[in-house]
């Protein structure tokens, strides 16, 4: 009877060890999965950063291009206005130049 009991205890002890061993293996897998998840998250973050950098730069470049277009449009209008004004004063300017070239002033 005692022998049977001891045998049963040893069997249970062995089963317990195996259960704990299995638990440890599962724990290791959980930790490995977590480490893999961390790696995936970091990799994803790096990819997101690349995409974000492009998006942000694009946003400001577009903003800059819009301002640039407006500045150049205004500049062209202003230049045309100045040229038109200068055209109306061209004859006077030619006379001023001639006076100097001809030595009359």
């Amino acid at each position: 009877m005692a022998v049977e009991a001891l045998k049963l205890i040893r069997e249970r002890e062995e089963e317990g060890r195996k259960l704990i061993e299995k638990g440890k293996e599962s724990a290791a897998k959980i930790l490995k999965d977590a480490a893999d998840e961390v790696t995936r998250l970091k990799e994803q973050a790096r990819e997101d950063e690349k995409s974000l950098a492009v998006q942000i730069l694009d946003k400001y470049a577009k903003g800059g291009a819009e301002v640039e277009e407006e500045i150049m449009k205004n500049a062209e209008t202003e230049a045309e206005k100045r040229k038109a004004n200068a055209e109306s004063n061209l004859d006077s300017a030619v006379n001023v130049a001639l006076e100097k070239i001809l030595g009359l002033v």
Partner: protein
Amino acid sequence: MGAKEIVGKIKDEANVECEKIMSEAEENAKKKVEEVREEIEVQKKRFIEAEERKGVEEKERIVRAARLNARKLGWAAEEEMIAKALEEAMNRLKEVKTAGFKGNSYSRIMAGLIKDATMSIIPGSSASDELEVIISEEDASFVNPKMLKKISDEINRDSGANVRLSLSGERIKSAGGVIVKGKEGKVEVNNTFEQRMARLSASLREDIVKTLFISLSL
């Protein structure tokens, strides 16, 4: 404690230990992933801030370049009109030769240029000066010995010098104007229109700009 109880206890303890190991692992795993998520969020926020700063700088660079290009456009328009005025002035010189300018005949204008050139030579020359007047073939009909004598007399009377101007047989290629030089060739004043334009370039441009863009600057 009976064998049955011992066996039950062994089983229970194993189960508890196993659950503890699993639970700790799950907790650690969850904690690690959460920490990394938070770290990534902080890093992402910093990254976005840095990229936004770069973006603002890029936008400012584009705007600065655009403003410079706008100014260049204005300058180009100004330069175009200055060049046009000077070109038109050169074209009008032909008309001046036939129609005169502001009540002055071309001969009178030539006389003024000869006198101006001679007066520039006198201070550095000897008391008795033989000076030659060189003109272009096209202007030959506008200058004659009588006219040169009159100019010489005027200069001698006004300055006390003893200048004698004569017309050189040498001809220059020029749009107009004169070169006056000593017969020894040591001194020379070039009063051709091309040289005057070059010499007076800065003040000419200034006067032209003032006149061309007068109403805009007022």
